[in-house]
C-alpha cells in the first residue's frame, strides 16, 4: 500500500540514466547547450521527485507505529547466485536514503546549473554533462540500494564517474594521474568492501539490508560466533566493509586520492568530492549501522578511531596548504572524519543513537556548505584562473556575491551559530563527549583548526591586497550565482531542521537538546580560530611565516601532508612496480618462457650433439647394427634370467 505510493521513485535514477545515455551516445551530435539542458532538466525532474518522495515519506507514509519504516517500493531480480544469495535492483526508502536523495539531487542540480557558467566554452561540454548525469544516476542508485551488492555495484559506478570527471581534462597529465590514483586507491579499498560483503553474506546468506539490519533476527549469530585471529568473523567482515567506506570517504590512510582529485573541474569537486560521493562511506556505515552496533561493537570502535584521527590529521594538513581547493579537500576529509567519529561513538537506539543522528545531520549540512565553499572557490578560480592563494587577494571587491556566500559557508563550517554547521557539529561533539572524552577533545580541537584554516583561506583570498590579475576578475555569471545563493540560503536554514525527528539509529523519532556546555566550548574555540586567522592573515605581516619558521618540523610535515603520498609512491613505484611487476615480467620472459625455449634449445642441442652418429661411415652403421643386435641379446638374456 505504502510502497505503491512511492513506486515512482524508481524513475529518479532512471531519468538520469536515460539522460546519460542520450547525451553520452549522441555526444558531439548535440549542441553543447542542448546537452546541458537535457541533463539539467533530468536532474531537476529527479530533484522534484526526490523532494516529493521526501515529503511523502517524512510527513506521511514513512512514519508507522511511531517509527520510520523501511519501504521497498521497487525490487527486481538482477542476478541470482544461489537461492538466497541474489542481487536485486531495487529502491529502498528509509530516513537516511530519503535524506540522501534530497542532498544528492539538490547539490547535483545546483552543480548542473552552476556548470553552465563555469564550463562555458569548454571542449567536451556534452561529455561533461553526460558524466554528471552518470554520476547522479550512480549516486542515487547507491543511496537507494536495497542490498549490499546493489550498493557495491553503484559504489563502483560512482567510482568510475568520479574517475571520468577527475580526468575530464585528459590532456593534462596531472589530471590523468589524479584520476588514476583516485580510482585505484578506492578500488583497493573496495577490495576490502567486496571481501567483507562476501564474508558477511557467506554467514548470513543474504545481501539484503532489510534482513541484515533486522535487530534480534539472529542472522548475525553464526558470523559473530566464528572467530578468526582474535576477532569474530563478523567484526572482520565489518572492518573490511568499512575499509571500502574509508576508501571512498577518504579516511586515513586511504585519503590520498581526494586532494589530488581536485584536478577535476571545480563543480565536480563540489558535487562528488565534497557533498555526495565522499560521504558514501559514512552512508555505508550508517546503512549497516544496526549490524555494526549490534553485531560487532569492536568494528565500530575502529570506525570511531579512524574518524577521529582522520579529522585531526586532515585539519592539520589543511592549515598549511596554499591551493585553495586542496585546503577544501583536506577540510572535507576532516569533516567526514567527524561524521565517522559520530557514527563510531553512537549507540543503537533513539537517544543513545545521538551520534548516528549527528553524523547524518552533519552529512546533510556539510553537503550544503561544503558544496557552497567549492562552488565559491570555483567562482574565484574562474575569475583569477589560478588555484593558488598566493595569486589571490582582495577579491571581495571584485566578487561581492561570491565573497558573501563564501563567508556564510566559512562561518557555517566553523560552527558559528546559527548557521547549519553549528548545530550538527554540536551534536557530534556531544555524542563524542558521551562516549569517550578524548574523542571530544580532539573533535573540539579540530573545530578550532577548522575555523582557523577556513578563515586563513577566506582572509587570504578575499582580503588583503589586490594581486596582478591578467584581466580584471569579474563576479560569477547568473547561472553560477543562482547556485551560490541557493546553497548559501540552505547553509543558513538547514541547521534548524529538527533532524532527530526524522533520523535516528532505530527509526524512532526523538528530540535532541542543545548541549550548552559543548556548544559554548565549540563556539569559543571557533571564534578563537577565526580570531587567530584574522590576526595572522588579515593584516599585512609575516606572523604566519615566523610561526612556520618557529616550528619547522611540524610545518614541513604538515605542508608535505605527512609524506603519506611519498609513502604510497614508494610502495607502488618501488615495492610493487620495481619490486614485483618488473621482476615478474622479467621472470616470465626469461625464466618461465626461457624454460620453454630452453627445452626447444636443448632438443636442438641434443640433435646437434648426436649428429656424429650419422657419420656417413658405412662401418659405423654396421657397428651400430651389430651393437644393437648384441645389446638386444644381452637385454633379453638379462631380463629372461
Amino acid at each position, binding site marked *: 500500500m505504502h510502497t505503491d505510493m512511492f513506486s515512482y521513485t524508481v524513475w529518479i535514477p532512471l531519468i538520469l540514466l536515460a539522460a546519460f545515455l542520450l547525451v553520452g551516445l549522441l555526444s558531439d551530435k548535440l549542441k553543447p547547450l542542448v546537452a546541458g539542458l537535457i541533463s539539467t532538466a533530468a536532474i531537476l525532474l529527479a530533484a522534484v521527485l526526490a523532494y516529493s518522495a521526501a515529503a511523502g515519506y517524512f510527513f506521511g507514509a514513512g512514519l508507522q507505529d511511531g517509527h520510520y519504516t523501511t519501504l521497498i517500493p521497487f525490487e527486481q531480480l538482477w542476478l541470482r547466485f544461489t537461492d538466497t544469495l541474489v542481487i536485486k535492483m531495487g529502491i529502498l526508502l528509509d530516513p537516511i536514503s530519503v535524506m540522501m536523495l534530497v542532498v544528492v539531487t539538490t547539490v547535483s542540480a545546483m552543480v548542473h546549473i552552476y556548470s553552465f557558467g563555469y564550463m562555458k566554452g569548454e571542449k567536451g561540454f556534452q561529455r561533461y554533462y553526460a558524466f554528471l548525469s552518470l554520476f547522479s544516476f550512480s549516486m542515487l542508485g547507491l543511496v537507494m540500494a536495497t542490498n549490499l551488492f546493489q550498493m557495491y555495484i553503484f559504489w563502483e559506478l560512482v567510482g568510475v564517474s568520479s574517475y571520468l570527471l577527475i580526468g575530464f581534462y585528459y590532456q593534462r597529465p596531472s589530471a590523468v594521474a589524479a584520476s588514476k590514483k583516485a580510482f585505484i586507491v578506492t578500488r583497493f579499498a573496495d577490495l576490502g568492501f567486496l571481501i567483507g560483503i562476501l564474508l558477511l553474506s557467506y554467514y548470513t546468506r543474504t545481501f539484503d539490508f532489510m534482513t541484515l539490519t533486522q535487530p534480534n533476527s539472529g542472522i548475525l549469530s553464526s558470523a559473530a560466533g566464528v572467530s578468526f585471529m582474535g576477532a569474530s568473523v563478523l567484526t572482520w567482515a565489518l572492518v573490511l566493509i568499512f575499509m571500502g567506506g574509508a576508501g571512498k570517504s577518504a579516511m586515513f590512510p586511504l585519503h590520498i586520492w581526494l586532494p589530488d582529485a581536485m584536478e577535476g573541474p571545480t563543480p565536480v569537486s563540489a558535487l562528488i568530492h565534497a557533498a555526495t560521493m565522499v560521504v558514501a562511506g559514512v552512508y555505508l556505515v550508517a546503512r549497516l549501522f544496526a549490524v555494526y552496533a549490534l553485531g560487532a561493537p569492536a568494528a565500530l570502535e575502529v570506525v570511531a578511531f579512524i574518524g577521529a584521527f582522520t579529522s585531526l590529521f586532515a585539519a592539520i594538513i589543511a592549515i598549511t596548504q596554499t591551493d585553495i581547493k586542496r585546503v577544501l579537500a583536506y577540510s572535507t576529509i576532516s569533516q567526514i572524519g567527524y561524521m565517522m567519529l559520530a557514527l563510531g561513538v553512537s549507540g543503537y537506539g533513539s537517544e543513545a543513537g545521538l551520534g548516528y543522528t549527528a553524523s547524518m545531520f552533519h552529512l546533510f549540512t556539510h553537503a550544503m556548505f561544503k558544496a557552497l565553499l567549492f562552488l565559491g572557490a570555483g567562482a574565484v578560480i574562474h575569475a583569477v584562473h589560478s588555484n593558488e592563494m598566493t595569486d589571490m587577494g582582495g577579491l571581495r571587491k571584485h566578487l561581492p556575491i561570491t565573497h558573501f556566500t563564501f563567508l556564510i559557508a566559512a562561518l557555517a563550517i566553523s560552527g558559528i551559530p546559527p548557521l547549519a554547521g553549528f548545530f550538527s557539529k554540536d551534536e557530534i561533539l556531544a555524542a563524542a563527549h558521551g562516549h569517550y572524552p578524548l574523542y571530544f577533545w580532539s573533535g573540539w580541537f579540530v573545530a578550532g583548526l577548522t575555523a582557523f584554516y577556513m578563515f586563513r583561506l577566506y582572509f587570504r583570498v578575499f582580503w588583503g591586497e589586490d594581486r596582478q590579475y591578467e584581466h580584471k576578475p569579474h563576479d560569477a555569471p547568473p547561472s553560477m550565482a543562482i547556485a551560490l545563493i541557493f546553497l548559501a540560503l540552505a547553509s543558513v536554514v538547514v541547521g534548524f531542521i529538527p533532524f532527530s525527528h526524522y533520523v535516528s539509529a532505530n527509526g524512532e523519532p526523538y528530540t535532541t537538546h542543545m548541549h550548552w556546555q559543548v556548544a559554548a566550548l565549540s563556539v569559543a574555540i571557533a571564534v578563537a580560530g577565526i580570531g587567530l586567522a584574522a590576526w595572522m592573515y588579515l593584516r599585512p605581516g609575516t606572523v604566519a611565516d615566523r610561526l612556520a619558521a618557529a616550528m619547522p618540523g611540524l610545518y614541513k610535515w604538515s605542508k608535505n601532508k605527512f609524506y603519506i603520498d611519498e609513502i604510497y609512491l614508494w610502495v607502488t613505484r618501488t615495492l610493487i612496480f620495481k619490486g614485483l611487476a618488473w621482476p615478474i615480467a622479467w621472470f616470465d620472459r626469461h625464466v618461465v618462457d626461457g624454460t620453454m625455449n630452453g627445452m626447444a634449445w636443448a632438443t636442438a642441442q641434443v640433435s646437434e650433439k648426436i649428429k656424429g652418429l650419422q*657419420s*656417413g661411415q*658405412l*662401418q659405423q652403421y654396421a657397428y651400430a647394427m651389430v651393437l644393437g643386435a648384441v645389446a638386444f641379446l644381452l637385454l633379453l638374456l638379462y631380463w629372461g634370467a
Partner: protein
Amino acid sequence: MIEGIEVFDVLVVSTAMFFIGIYGFMVRKNLITILMSVELILNAVNINFVIFNKYLYPDMLQGYIFSLFVTGIAAAEAAVAIAIILNVYRHMKGIDVEQVDTMKY
C-alpha cells in the same frame, strides 16, 4: 654324423666364423674385403643349417635346401655388389670405405 662331435662343437666354429665375418665387415677398409666378410657370414649360416639338418632333423631336407638357396643368393648379391663397387671405383678411383661418406649428418 661325426663320432664324438656334438652339435655345439660345430656351432662354436660356425658362430666364431660368423663373428669373424662381422668383425671383418666392421674393420676392413676395402669395399671388396667387406664383401668377403659377408661371404664369411653367409658361410657360417650355411654351416648352421647343415649341421642342424644333419644332427637334429635328418628326416627332412629343410636346412639342407635352405643352405642351397642361401648360396645362390649369396652369388646374386655378390654380383650386384661388385657391380656397384666397380662403379664406386669408377667415380672415386678407389674403394676405400672411409672415403665413401659424402653424405652424412
